[in-house]
Protein backbone atom coordinates (compact mmCIF):
# COMPACT_ATOMS: atom_id res chain seq x y z
CA UNK A 1 0.00 0.00 0.00
CA UNK A 2 1.31 3.43 -0.96
CA UNK A 3 2.42 5.85 1.75
CA UNK A 4 -0.04 8.54 2.69
CA UNK A 5 0.59 12.09 1.44
CA UNK A 6 -2.36 13.41 3.43
CA UNK A 7 -3.84 11.76 6.50
CA UNK A 8 -6.81 13.31 8.31
CA UNK A 9 -7.94 11.37 11.37
CA UNK A 10 -11.09 12.67 13.08
CA UNK A 11 -10.13 16.27 12.35
CA UNK A 12 -12.42 18.87 13.92
CA UNK A 13 -12.53 22.57 13.11
CA UNK A 14 -14.94 24.87 14.88
CA UNK A 15 -15.62 28.56 14.27
CA UNK A 16 -17.25 29.80 17.48
CA UNK A 17 -20.15 27.34 17.78
CA UNK A 18 -20.16 26.22 14.14
CA UNK A 19 -18.53 22.85 13.55
CA UNK A 20 -17.09 23.22 10.03
CA UNK A 21 -15.21 19.90 10.18
CA UNK A 22 -16.81 17.18 12.26
CA UNK A 23 -14.27 14.39 12.80
CA UNK A 24 -13.32 14.39 9.13
CA UNK A 25 -11.27 11.36 8.28
CA UNK A 26 -9.70 10.68 4.90
CA UNK A 27 -6.32 9.96 3.43
CA UNK A 28 -4.64 10.51 0.09
CA UNK A 29 -1.96 8.12 -1.12
CA UNK A 30 1.26 9.46 -2.56
CA UNK A 31 0.89 10.08 -6.28
CA UNK A 32 -2.89 9.84 -6.13
CA UNK A 33 -5.41 12.16 -7.76
CA UNK A 34 -8.06 12.63 -5.09
CA UNK A 35 -11.26 14.60 -5.42
CA UNK A 36 -13.12 16.15 -2.51
CA UNK A 37 -16.70 16.82 -3.50
CA UNK A 38 -19.72 18.09 -1.70
CA UNK A 39 -22.30 20.88 -1.67
CA UNK A 40 -21.47 24.49 -0.79
CA UNK A 41 -20.64 24.84 2.89
CA UNK A 42 -19.87 21.12 3.22
CA UNK A 43 -16.42 21.83 4.65
CA UNK A 44 -14.23 21.27 1.58
CA UNK A 45 -12.50 24.67 1.74
CA UNK A 46 -12.08 24.41 5.53
CA UNK A 47 -10.44 21.04 5.05
CA UNK A 48 -8.06 22.60 2.55
CA UNK A 49 -7.29 25.51 4.89
CA UNK A 50 -6.41 23.07 7.67
CA UNK A 51 -4.39 20.96 5.26
CA UNK A 52 -2.37 23.95 3.99
CA UNK A 53 -1.76 25.26 7.51
CA UNK A 54 -3.89 28.37 7.04
CA UNK A 55 -6.10 27.25 9.92
CA UNK A 56 -5.28 25.10 12.90
CA UNK A 57 -7.46 22.07 13.57
CA UNK A 58 -9.48 22.31 16.76
CA UNK A 59 -9.09 18.61 17.32
CA UNK A 60 -8.04 15.31 15.74
CA UNK A 61 -4.84 14.52 13.93
CA UNK A 62 -3.68 15.75 10.53
CA UNK A 63 -0.48 14.98 8.65
CA UNK A 64 0.69 16.35 5.32
CA UNK A 65 3.66 14.65 3.65
CA UNK A 66 4.54 13.36 7.11
CA UNK A 67 4.54 16.82 8.73
CA UNK A 68 2.10 18.70 10.90
CA UNK A 69 0.20 21.00 8.48
CA UNK A 70 1.54 24.13 10.21
CA UNK A 71 5.17 22.95 10.18
CA UNK A 72 7.09 25.47 8.03
CA UNK A 73 9.14 22.58 6.60
CA UNK A 74 6.13 21.35 4.60
CA UNK A 75 5.41 24.67 2.88
CA UNK A 76 7.99 24.39 0.04
CA UNK A 77 6.51 21.00 -0.83
CA UNK A 78 2.90 22.13 -1.31
CA UNK A 79 1.41 24.13 -4.19
CA UNK A 80 -1.92 25.83 -3.49
CA UNK A 81 -4.46 27.37 -5.80
CA UNK A 82 -7.25 29.11 -3.83
CA UNK A 83 -10.78 29.69 -5.12
CA UNK A 84 -10.09 33.40 -5.63
CA UNK A 85 -7.58 34.67 -8.17
CA UNK A 86 -5.32 35.51 -5.22
CA UNK A 87 -2.77 37.38 -7.29
CA UNK A 88 -1.64 40.99 -7.00
CA UNK A 89 -3.99 42.75 -9.39
CA UNK A 90 -1.63 45.64 -10.07
CA UNK A 91 1.32 43.41 -10.93
CA UNK A 92 1.83 41.74 -14.28
CA UNK A 93 1.53 37.96 -14.62
CA UNK A 94 5.31 37.69 -14.83
CA UNK A 95 5.86 39.94 -11.78
CA UNK A 96 3.44 37.82 -9.75
CA UNK A 97 5.24 34.64 -10.75
CA UNK A 98 8.64 36.20 -10.01
CA UNK A 99 7.41 37.26 -6.57
CA UNK A 100 6.12 33.83 -5.59
CA UNK A 101 9.09 32.11 -7.25
CA UNK A 102 11.36 34.24 -5.06
CA UNK A 103 9.41 33.26 -1.95
CA UNK A 104 9.86 29.58 -2.88
CA UNK A 105 13.60 30.28 -3.20
CA UNK A 106 13.76 29.28 -6.86
CA UNK A 107 17.03 30.66 -8.25
CA UNK A 108 16.72 33.22 -10.99
CA UNK A 109 17.85 31.32 -14.14
CA UNK A 110 15.74 28.30 -13.19
CA UNK A 111 12.85 30.59 -12.26
CA UNK A 112 12.84 32.32 -15.65
CA UNK A 113 12.82 28.96 -17.44
CA UNK A 114 10.04 27.71 -15.17
CA UNK A 115 7.96 30.87 -15.74
CA UNK A 116 8.39 30.52 -19.52
CA UNK A 117 7.24 26.89 -19.36
CA UNK A 118 4.25 27.66 -17.14
CA UNK A 119 3.17 30.64 -19.26
CA UNK A 120 3.18 28.39 -22.30
CA UNK A 121 1.20 25.75 -20.42
CA UNK A 122 -1.51 28.16 -19.29
CA UNK A 123 -1.41 29.84 -22.68
CA UNK A 124 -0.51 33.27 -21.33
CA UNK A 125 2.87 33.85 -23.00
CA UNK A 126 1.49 36.79 -24.96
CA UNK A 127 -0.04 38.27 -21.81
CA UNK A 128 2.91 37.83 -19.49
CA UNK A 129 3.55 41.53 -19.08
CA UNK A 130 -0.08 42.58 -18.69
CA UNK A 131 -1.29 43.46 -15.22
CA UNK A 132 -3.79 40.99 -13.78
CA UNK A 133 -6.66 43.52 -13.83
CA UNK A 134 -6.32 43.72 -17.62
CA UNK A 135 -6.96 39.98 -17.99
CA UNK A 136 -10.31 38.21 -18.35
CA UNK A 137 -11.57 36.06 -15.47
CA UNK A 138 -10.45 32.85 -17.20
CA UNK A 139 -6.98 34.26 -17.86
CA UNK A 140 -6.68 35.31 -14.21
CA UNK A 141 -7.55 31.72 -13.23
CA UNK A 142 -4.86 30.39 -15.53
CA UNK A 143 -2.30 32.78 -14.04
CA UNK A 144 -3.34 31.61 -10.58
CA UNK A 145 -2.79 27.97 -11.57
CA UNK A 146 0.66 28.88 -12.92
CA UNK A 147 1.53 30.40 -9.53
CA UNK A 148 0.43 27.20 -7.75
CA UNK A 149 2.58 25.05 -10.04
CA UNK A 150 5.70 27.23 -9.64
CA UNK A 151 7.40 25.28 -6.85
CA UNK A 152 7.02 21.88 -8.60
CA UNK A 153 5.10 20.70 -5.55
CA UNK A 154 4.95 17.15 -4.21
CA UNK A 155 1.37 17.90 -3.20
CA UNK A 156 -0.80 20.15 -5.34
CA UNK A 157 -3.95 21.48 -3.66
CA UNK A 158 -6.53 22.93 -6.03
CA UNK A 159 -9.65 24.53 -4.61
CA UNK A 160 -12.19 24.53 -7.44
CA UNK A 161 -9.58 25.33 -10.09
CA UNK A 162 -11.87 25.16 -13.10
CA UNK A 163 -14.69 27.47 -12.02
CA UNK A 164 -15.23 29.98 -14.81
CA UNK A 165 -12.82 28.20 -17.12
CA UNK A 166 -14.03 27.33 -20.62
CA UNK A 167 -14.39 23.62 -21.55
CA UNK A 168 -11.37 23.62 -23.84
CA UNK A 169 -9.08 24.99 -21.14
CA UNK A 170 -10.58 22.64 -18.55
CA UNK A 171 -9.54 19.75 -20.78
CA UNK A 172 -6.03 21.24 -21.01
CA UNK A 173 -5.86 21.64 -17.24
CA UNK A 174 -6.88 18.05 -16.68
CA UNK A 175 -4.35 16.76 -19.19
CA UNK A 176 -1.68 18.62 -17.25
CA UNK A 177 -2.91 17.25 -13.94
CA UNK A 178 -2.72 13.75 -15.38
CA UNK A 179 0.85 14.37 -16.57
CA UNK A 180 1.84 15.69 -13.16
CA UNK A 181 0.28 12.72 -11.47
CA UNK A 182 2.27 10.39 -13.72
CA UNK A 183 5.37 12.27 -12.59
CA UNK A 184 4.52 11.41 -8.99
CA UNK A 185 2.72 14.56 -7.85
CA UNK A 186 -0.11 14.00 -5.41
CA UNK A 187 -3.15 16.09 -6.32
CA UNK A 188 -6.08 17.07 -4.15
CA UNK A 189 -8.86 18.81 -6.00
CA UNK A 190 -12.23 20.13 -4.90
CA UNK A 191 -14.84 20.48 -7.55
CA UNK A 192 -18.51 20.90 -8.23
CA UNK A 193 -18.22 19.27 -11.63
CA UNK A 194 -19.07 15.56 -11.45
CA UNK A 195 -17.43 14.88 -14.80
CA UNK A 196 -14.19 16.15 -13.24
CA UNK A 197 -14.72 14.05 -10.14
CA UNK A 198 -15.02 11.05 -12.43
CA UNK A 199 -11.41 11.65 -13.53
CA UNK A 200 -10.14 11.22 -9.97
CA UNK A 201 -8.80 7.89 -8.76
CA UNK A 202 -10.79 8.24 -5.60
CA UNK A 203 -13.28 10.78 -4.37
CA UNK A 204 -14.42 11.67 -0.90
CA UNK A 205 -18.00 12.88 -0.54
CA UNK A 206 -18.19 15.47 2.23
CA UNK A 207 -21.29 16.91 3.86
CA UNK A 208 -21.71 18.84 7.13
CA UNK A 209 -17.97 18.50 7.75
CA UNK A 210 -18.04 14.69 7.64
CA UNK A 211 -16.87 12.19 5.08
CA UNK A 212 -20.03 10.39 4.03
CA UNK A 213 -18.58 8.17 1.34
CA UNK A 214 -15.22 7.41 -0.20
CA UNK A 215 -13.95 5.26 -3.04
CA UNK A 216 -13.36 5.20 -6.75
CA UNK A 217 -16.14 6.95 -8.69
CA UNK A 218 -17.12 3.71 -10.34
CA UNK A 219 -17.28 1.88 -7.00
CA UNK A 220 -19.45 4.61 -5.49
CA UNK A 221 -21.85 4.51 -8.43
CA UNK A 222 -22.01 0.73 -8.28
CA UNK A 223 -22.53 0.69 -4.55
CA UNK A 224 -25.33 3.26 -4.75
CA UNK A 225 -26.90 1.34 -7.64
CA UNK A 226 -27.31 4.49 -9.73
CA UNK A 227 -26.00 5.66 -13.07
CA UNK A 228 -24.06 8.81 -12.23
CA UNK A 229 -21.77 10.05 -9.50
CA UNK A 230 -24.15 12.95 -8.85
CA UNK A 231 -26.99 10.51 -8.21
CA UNK A 232 -24.67 8.46 -6.03
CA UNK A 233 -23.83 11.55 -3.97
CA UNK A 234 -27.50 12.45 -3.58
CA UNK A 235 -28.34 8.92 -2.53
CA UNK A 236 -25.38 8.44 -0.20
CA UNK A 237 -25.69 11.85 1.46
CA UNK A 238 -28.33 10.59 3.84
CA UNK A 239 -26.35 7.57 5.07
CA UNK A 240 -23.38 6.89 7.29
CA UNK A 241 -19.85 6.38 6.09
CA UNK A 242 -19.64 4.16 3.03
CA UNK A 243 -16.37 2.72 1.79
CA UNK A 244 -17.07 0.52 -1.22
CA UNK A 245 -14.38 -1.99 -2.06
Amino acid at each position, binding site marked *: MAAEAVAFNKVVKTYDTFRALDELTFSIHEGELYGLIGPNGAGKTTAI*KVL*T*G*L*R*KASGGDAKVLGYEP*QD*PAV*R*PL*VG*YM*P*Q*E*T*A*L*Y*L*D*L*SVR*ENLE*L*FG*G*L*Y*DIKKPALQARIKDLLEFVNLSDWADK*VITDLSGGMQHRASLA*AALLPKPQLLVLDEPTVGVDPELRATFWARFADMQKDGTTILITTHYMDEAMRCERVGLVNHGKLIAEGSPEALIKHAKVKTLEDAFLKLAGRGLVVPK
Partner: protein
Amino acid sequence: MRGSHVAAIARKQFLTLRHDHRSLALMLVAPVLAMLIFGFAFGTSPKHIKVLVVNQDSGATAQNIIDKLDKDKLNLETTMDVDGAKQQVRDGKVVGVLVFPSSFTADSSPKVSISLVGGKPQPSVAPPAGAHAEVYIDTTNQQLSAVVLPELARATQQVAADAGAQSPVSYDTKYAFAKAKDARYIDYFVPGIMAFAITFFTILLTLLAFVSERTSGTMDRLRVSPATEAEIVLGNELAFGIIAAVQGSLILAVALLVYHVLLVGPLWIAVLLVILAAIDAQAIGISISAAAKRESQAVQLIPLIIFPVFLLSGIFVPVASLPGWLQPFSYLLPPTWAIDALRDVFLRGWGMDHVWVNVAVLAGFAVLFTAIAIVGLGRARS
Protein backbone atom coordinates in the same frame (compact mmCIF):
# COMPACT_ATOMS: atom_id res chain seq x y z
CA MET B 1 14.52 34.86 8.57
CA ARG B 2 15.48 35.24 4.91
CA GLY B 3 16.51 38.65 3.62
CA SER B 4 15.50 37.64 0.10
CA HIS B 5 11.90 37.07 1.24
CA VAL B 6 11.79 40.45 2.99
CA ALA B 7 13.23 42.14 -0.09
CA ALA B 8 10.79 40.32 -2.43
CA ILE B 9 7.78 41.50 -0.41
CA ALA B 10 9.11 45.06 -0.22
CA ARG B 11 9.79 45.02 -3.97
CA LYS B 12 6.23 43.87 -4.61
CA GLN B 13 4.95 46.99 -2.88
CA PHE B 14 6.96 49.25 -5.20
CA LEU B 15 6.02 47.27 -8.32
CA THR B 16 2.37 47.63 -7.33
CA LEU B 17 2.78 51.39 -7.14
CA ARG B 18 4.33 51.46 -10.59
CA HIS B 19 1.06 50.21 -12.03
CA ASP B 20 -1.29 51.77 -9.48
CA HIS B 21 -0.99 55.47 -10.22
CA ARG B 22 -3.82 56.47 -7.93
CA SER B 23 -2.14 55.01 -4.85
CA LEU B 24 1.17 56.49 -5.94
CA ALA B 25 -0.49 59.90 -6.19
CA LEU B 26 -2.08 59.40 -2.77
CA MET B 27 1.31 58.58 -1.31
CA LEU B 28 3.19 61.47 -2.87
CA VAL B 29 0.73 64.25 -3.59
CA ALA B 30 -1.68 63.92 -0.67
CA PRO B 31 0.83 64.55 2.16
CA VAL B 32 2.18 67.58 0.31
CA LEU B 33 -1.33 68.85 -0.33
CA ALA B 34 -2.27 68.28 3.31
CA MET B 35 0.86 70.13 4.36
CA LEU B 36 0.04 73.07 2.09
CA ILE B 37 -3.57 73.28 3.25
CA PHE B 38 -2.74 72.92 6.95
CA GLY B 39 0.11 75.38 6.60
CA PHE B 40 -2.04 78.04 4.98
CA ALA B 41 -4.99 77.41 7.28
CA PHE B 42 -3.13 77.35 10.59
CA GLY B 43 0.26 78.77 9.86
CA THR B 44 -0.67 82.34 9.00
CA SER B 45 -1.43 84.96 11.67
CA PRO B 46 -4.73 86.85 11.49
CA LYS B 47 -4.41 89.88 9.22
CA HIS B 48 -6.50 92.79 7.91
CA ILE B 49 -8.88 92.73 10.88
CA LYS B 50 -11.57 95.34 10.25
CA VAL B 51 -11.64 98.01 13.00
CA LEU B 52 -13.43 101.38 12.92
CA VAL B 53 -11.82 104.44 14.53
CA VAL B 54 -13.80 107.37 15.91
CA ASN B 55 -11.24 110.08 16.66
CA GLN B 56 -12.84 113.05 18.49
CA ASP B 57 -9.56 114.04 20.18
CA SER B 58 -8.88 117.76 19.95
CA GLY B 59 -5.16 117.10 20.45
CA ALA B 60 -2.63 114.93 18.60
CA THR B 61 -2.14 111.94 20.94
CA ALA B 62 -4.98 109.76 19.58
CA GLN B 63 -3.82 110.38 16.02
CA ASN B 64 -0.25 109.47 17.01
CA ILE B 65 -1.48 106.15 18.44
CA ILE B 66 -3.57 105.49 15.33
CA ASP B 67 -0.53 106.18 13.16
CA LYS B 68 1.51 103.63 15.11
CA LEU B 69 -1.05 100.81 14.72
CA ASP B 70 0.08 98.01 12.39
CA LYS B 71 -1.97 98.54 9.22
CA ASP B 72 -1.23 95.00 8.05
CA LYS B 73 -2.85 93.50 11.13
CA LEU B 74 -5.67 96.02 11.45
CA ASN B 75 -7.67 97.33 8.55
CA LEU B 76 -8.64 100.75 9.94
CA GLU B 77 -11.51 102.92 8.71
CA THR B 78 -12.37 106.26 10.28
CA THR B 79 -15.83 107.52 11.05
CA MET B 80 -17.42 110.08 13.36
CA ASP B 81 -20.66 108.12 13.90
CA VAL B 82 -20.15 106.28 17.20
CA ASP B 83 -23.59 104.62 17.28
CA GLY B 84 -23.38 103.60 13.65
CA ALA B 85 -19.90 102.13 14.20
CA LYS B 86 -21.08 100.09 17.20
CA GLN B 87 -24.06 98.86 15.19
CA GLN B 88 -21.60 97.55 12.58
CA VAL B 89 -19.87 95.53 15.33
CA ARG B 90 -23.22 94.13 16.45
CA ASP B 91 -24.01 93.29 12.84
CA GLY B 92 -20.77 91.32 12.62
CA LYS B 93 -19.40 93.56 9.87
CA VAL B 94 -16.36 94.78 11.82
CA VAL B 95 -14.49 93.33 14.79
CA GLY B 96 -14.25 96.48 16.90
CA VAL B 97 -14.52 100.22 17.30
CA LEU B 98 -11.93 102.51 18.95
CA VAL B 99 -13.46 105.71 20.32
CA PHE B 100 -11.02 108.46 21.36
CA PRO B 101 -12.88 111.27 23.23
CA SER B 102 -12.17 115.00 22.64
CA SER B 103 -10.28 115.30 25.96
CA PHE B 104 -7.97 112.34 25.20
CA THR B 105 -4.79 114.41 24.69
CA ALA B 106 -5.60 116.78 27.55
CA ASP B 107 -6.33 113.90 29.93
CA SER B 108 -3.17 112.09 28.96
CA SER B 109 -0.88 115.11 29.56
CA PRO B 110 0.41 116.51 32.86
CA LYS B 111 -1.41 119.68 34.00
CA VAL B 112 0.82 122.68 34.46
CA SER B 113 -0.57 125.49 36.62
CA ILE B 114 0.97 128.71 37.86
CA SER B 115 0.14 130.17 41.22
CA LEU B 116 1.47 133.21 43.07
CA VAL B 117 3.59 132.32 46.04
CA GLY B 118 4.78 135.36 48.00
CA GLY B 119 3.76 137.55 45.08
CA LYS B 120 5.90 135.55 42.69
CA PRO B 121 4.51 133.21 39.96
CA GLN B 122 5.30 129.61 40.85
CA PRO B 123 4.64 126.77 38.27
CA SER B 124 3.41 123.43 39.52
CA VAL B 125 2.86 120.16 37.59
CA ALA B 126 0.00 117.81 38.38
CA PRO B 127 -0.04 114.21 37.02
CA PRO B 128 -2.30 113.47 34.04
CA ALA B 129 -5.97 113.06 34.84
CA GLY B 130 -5.90 109.76 32.90
CA ALA B 131 -7.15 109.43 29.36
CA HIS B 132 -9.86 106.90 28.57
CA ALA B 133 -10.55 105.55 25.13
CA GLU B 134 -13.39 103.15 24.55
CA VAL B 135 -12.90 99.81 22.81
CA TYR B 136 -16.15 98.19 21.64
CA ILE B 137 -15.29 94.69 20.50
CA ASP B 138 -16.78 91.43 19.24
CA THR B 139 -15.04 88.56 21.06
CA THR B 140 -16.94 85.76 19.37
CA ASN B 141 -13.89 85.12 17.17
CA GLN B 142 -10.97 84.96 19.58
CA GLN B 143 -8.46 84.61 16.79
CA LEU B 144 -9.36 88.11 15.55
CA SER B 145 -10.34 89.91 18.74
CA ALA B 146 -7.23 88.73 20.60
CA VAL B 147 -5.09 90.73 18.18
CA VAL B 148 -6.80 94.11 18.69
CA LEU B 149 -6.08 94.96 22.34
CA PRO B 150 -2.40 93.88 22.38
CA GLU B 151 -1.84 95.86 19.19
CA LEU B 152 -3.47 98.94 20.74
CA ALA B 153 -1.30 98.55 23.87
CA ARG B 154 1.83 98.20 21.76
CA ALA B 155 1.07 101.36 19.75
CA THR B 156 0.28 103.30 22.95
CA GLN B 157 3.58 102.25 24.53
CA GLN B 158 5.40 103.25 21.38
CA VAL B 159 3.86 106.72 21.46
CA ALA B 160 4.75 107.08 25.15
CA ALA B 161 8.31 105.95 24.53
CA ASP B 162 8.66 108.39 21.63
CA ALA B 163 7.51 111.17 23.94
CA GLY B 164 10.32 110.30 26.35
CA ALA B 165 8.18 108.56 28.95
CA GLN B 166 9.97 105.88 30.85
CA SER B 167 8.33 102.84 32.39
CA PRO B 168 9.35 102.24 36.01
CA VAL B 169 9.77 98.56 35.07
CA SER B 170 11.81 97.19 32.21
CA TYR B 171 12.72 93.69 31.07
CA ASP B 172 15.99 92.73 29.47
CA THR B 173 15.21 89.69 27.27
CA LYS B 174 17.91 87.17 26.46
CA TYR B 175 17.20 84.11 24.29
CA ALA B 176 18.01 80.55 25.30
CA PHE B 177 17.73 79.52 21.65
CA ALA B 178 18.92 82.57 19.78
CA LYS B 179 18.25 81.12 16.33
CA ALA B 180 14.61 80.60 17.26
CA LYS B 181 14.07 84.06 18.75
CA ASP B 182 11.88 85.08 15.82
CA ALA B 183 10.12 81.69 15.60
CA ARG B 184 6.57 81.94 14.31
CA TYR B 185 3.59 79.74 15.03
CA ILE B 186 4.13 77.89 11.76
CA ASP B 187 7.67 76.99 12.83
CA TYR B 188 6.12 75.29 15.86
CA PHE B 189 3.22 73.87 13.87
CA VAL B 190 5.04 72.30 10.90
CA PRO B 191 6.89 69.52 12.80
CA GLY B 192 3.54 68.51 14.28
CA ILE B 193 1.73 68.39 10.99
CA MET B 194 4.66 66.51 9.39
CA ALA B 195 4.38 63.69 11.91
CA PHE B 196 0.59 63.71 11.64
CA ALA B 197 0.56 63.55 7.83
CA ILE B 198 3.06 60.67 7.79
CA THR B 199 1.13 58.80 10.48
CA PHE B 200 -2.24 59.32 8.83
CA PHE B 201 -1.28 58.34 5.30
CA THR B 202 0.88 55.40 6.38
CA ILE B 203 -1.88 53.93 8.57
CA LEU B 204 -4.42 54.49 5.80
CA LEU B 205 -2.31 52.85 3.10
CA THR B 206 -1.14 49.93 5.24
CA LEU B 207 -4.58 49.23 6.61
CA LEU B 208 -6.21 49.23 3.17
CA ALA B 209 -3.34 47.25 1.63
CA PHE B 210 -3.55 44.51 4.28
CA VAL B 211 -7.33 44.26 4.26
CA SER B 212 -7.15 44.03 0.47
CA GLU B 213 -4.52 41.26 0.77
CA ARG B 214 -6.88 39.33 3.03
CA THR B 215 -9.99 39.78 0.89
CA SER B 216 -8.24 39.03 -2.40
CA GLY B 217 -6.63 35.83 -1.11
CA THR B 218 -3.05 36.97 -1.73
CA MET B 219 -2.36 36.89 2.01
CA ASP B 220 -3.33 33.20 2.08
CA ARG B 221 -1.05 32.52 -0.87
CA LEU B 222 1.80 34.34 0.91
CA ARG B 223 1.19 32.40 4.13
CA VAL B 224 1.11 29.06 2.33
CA SER B 225 4.47 29.91 0.74
CA PRO B 226 7.70 29.55 2.75
CA ALA B 227 7.52 33.28 3.68
CA THR B 228 7.03 33.66 7.43
CA GLU B 229 4.76 36.17 9.17
CA ALA B 230 7.84 38.07 10.33
CA GLU B 231 9.15 38.29 6.76
CA ILE B 232 5.77 39.51 5.50
CA VAL B 233 5.58 42.26 8.15
CA LEU B 234 9.23 43.30 7.83
CA GLY B 235 8.99 43.37 4.02
CA ASN B 236 6.11 45.79 4.32
CA GLU B 237 7.98 47.82 6.94
CA LEU B 238 10.94 48.12 4.60
CA ALA B 239 8.71 49.34 1.77
CA PHE B 240 6.67 51.75 3.88
CA GLY B 241 9.81 53.01 5.64
CA ILE B 242 11.29 53.97 2.27
CA ILE B 243 7.99 55.48 1.13
CA ALA B 244 7.78 57.46 4.38
CA ALA B 245 11.30 58.76 3.88
CA VAL B 246 10.25 60.03 0.44
CA GLN B 247 7.02 61.49 1.84
CA GLY B 248 8.91 63.08 4.72
CA SER B 249 11.43 64.61 2.32
CA LEU B 250 8.63 66.08 0.20
CA ILE B 251 6.88 67.49 3.25
CA LEU B 252 10.17 68.84 4.53
CA ALA B 253 10.80 70.48 1.14
CA VAL B 254 7.39 72.19 1.32
CA ALA B 255 8.11 73.30 4.89
CA LEU B 256 11.49 74.73 3.99
CA LEU B 257 10.76 76.15 0.54
CA VAL B 258 7.17 77.36 0.89
CA TYR B 259 6.93 78.24 4.58
CA HIS B 260 10.64 78.87 5.19
CA VAL B 261 10.39 77.14 8.54
CA LEU B 262 13.34 77.16 10.89
CA LEU B 263 15.47 74.04 10.82
CA VAL B 264 18.26 74.63 13.28
CA GLY B 265 19.20 71.02 14.08
CA PRO B 266 20.47 68.14 11.92
CA LEU B 267 18.25 67.16 9.00
CA TRP B 268 19.12 63.46 9.25
CA ILE B 269 17.62 63.20 12.74
CA ALA B 270 14.40 64.78 11.46
CA VAL B 271 14.30 62.22 8.64
CA LEU B 272 15.05 59.37 11.08
CA LEU B 273 12.19 60.50 13.33
CA VAL B 274 9.81 60.61 10.36
CA ILE B 275 10.84 57.09 9.29
CA LEU B 276 10.36 55.75 12.82
CA ALA B 277 6.93 57.40 13.01
CA ALA B 278 6.06 55.71 9.69
CA ILE B 279 7.24 52.29 10.86
CA ASP B 280 5.14 52.66 14.01
CA ALA B 281 2.16 53.75 11.91
CA GLN B 282 2.41 50.88 9.45
CA ALA B 283 2.75 48.30 12.23
CA ILE B 284 -0.37 49.80 13.85
CA GLY B 285 -2.09 49.65 10.44
CA ILE B 286 -1.25 45.95 10.05
CA SER B 287 -2.35 45.16 13.60
CA ILE B 288 -5.74 46.83 13.31
CA SER B 289 -6.33 45.44 9.82
CA ALA B 290 -7.26 42.15 11.50
CA ALA B 291 -10.35 43.90 12.88
CA ALA B 292 -11.71 44.63 9.40
CA LYS B 293 -13.18 42.04 7.07
CA ARG B 294 -13.63 44.44 4.15
CA GLU B 295 -12.14 47.71 2.91
CA SER B 296 -15.34 49.54 3.90
CA GLN B 297 -14.89 48.37 7.50
CA ALA B 298 -11.25 49.42 7.41
CA VAL B 299 -12.24 52.96 6.49
CA GLN B 300 -14.53 53.03 9.55
CA LEU B 301 -11.53 52.26 11.76
CA ILE B 302 -9.55 55.27 10.56
CA PRO B 303 -11.27 57.92 12.74
CA LEU B 304 -10.70 55.78 15.86
CA ILE B 305 -6.98 56.16 15.34
CA ILE B 306 -6.72 59.52 13.70
CA PHE B 307 -8.79 61.72 16.04
CA PRO B 308 -6.80 60.83 19.18
CA VAL B 309 -3.57 61.38 17.27
CA PHE B 310 -4.83 64.67 15.86
CA LEU B 311 -6.00 66.05 19.18
CA LEU B 312 -3.73 64.49 21.80
CA SER B 313 -0.28 64.28 20.25
CA GLY B 314 0.59 67.93 20.72
CA ILE B 315 0.09 69.19 17.18
CA PHE B 316 -2.04 72.13 18.30
CA VAL B 317 -2.06 72.08 22.09
CA PRO B 318 1.11 71.20 24.02
CA VAL B 319 0.67 67.89 25.83
CA ALA B 320 1.56 69.63 29.13
CA SER B 321 -1.49 71.88 28.66
CA LEU B 322 -3.91 68.93 28.42
CA PRO B 323 -5.85 67.83 31.53
CA GLY B 324 -3.64 65.67 33.75
CA TRP B 325 -5.80 62.56 33.37
CA LEU B 326 -5.53 62.80 29.57
CA GLN B 327 -1.76 63.20 29.35
CA PRO B 328 -0.87 59.50 29.86
CA PHE B 329 -2.96 58.68 26.78
CA SER B 330 -0.92 61.19 24.80
CA TYR B 331 2.27 59.37 25.66
CA LEU B 332 0.80 56.10 24.41
CA LEU B 333 0.68 57.62 20.93
CA PRO B 334 3.93 57.34 18.96
CA PRO B 335 3.36 60.68 17.12
CA THR B 336 3.52 62.49 20.49
CA TRP B 337 7.15 61.41 20.86
CA ALA B 338 7.95 62.14 17.22
CA ILE B 339 6.45 65.63 17.34
CA ASP B 340 8.21 66.50 20.58
CA ALA B 341 11.60 65.46 19.20
CA LEU B 342 10.99 67.03 15.79
CA ARG B 343 10.33 70.40 17.46
CA ASP B 344 13.49 70.05 19.52
CA VAL B 345 15.49 69.38 16.36
CA PHE B 346 13.78 72.02 14.22
CA LEU B 347 13.65 74.90 16.70
CA ARG B 348 16.10 74.19 19.51
CA GLY B 349 18.67 72.64 17.22
CA TRP B 350 19.11 69.68 19.50
CA GLY B 351 21.01 66.62 18.36
CA MET B 352 20.91 62.96 19.24
CA ASP B 353 22.42 63.65 22.68
CA HIS B 354 19.12 65.31 23.65
CA VAL B 355 16.48 63.48 21.61
CA TRP B 356 17.77 59.93 22.02
CA VAL B 357 15.04 59.15 24.55
CA ASN B 358 12.34 59.98 22.00
CA VAL B 359 14.20 58.00 19.31
CA ALA B 360 14.49 55.05 21.70
CA VAL B 361 10.79 55.23 22.61
CA LEU B 362 9.79 55.39 18.93
CA ALA B 363 12.08 52.44 18.17
CA GLY B 364 10.58 50.62 21.17
CA PHE B 365 7.07 51.28 19.83
CA ALA B 366 8.26 50.00 16.42
CA VAL B 367 9.49 46.74 17.98
CA LEU B 368 6.34 46.37 20.09
CA PHE B 369 3.86 47.12 17.29
CA THR B 370 5.85 44.98 14.83
CA ALA B 371 5.69 42.08 17.29
CA ILE B 372 1.94 42.65 17.70
CA ALA B 373 1.52 42.72 13.91
CA ILE B 374 3.50 39.48 13.49
CA VAL B 375 1.62 37.73 16.30
CA GLY B 376 -1.67 39.06 14.90
CA LEU B 377 -0.90 37.60 11.45
CA GLY B 378 0.08 34.32 13.08
CA ARG B 379 -3.14 34.24 15.09
CA ALA B 380 -5.08 34.24 11.85
CA ARG B 381 -3.85 30.65 11.51
CA SER B 382 -5.61 29.59 14.68
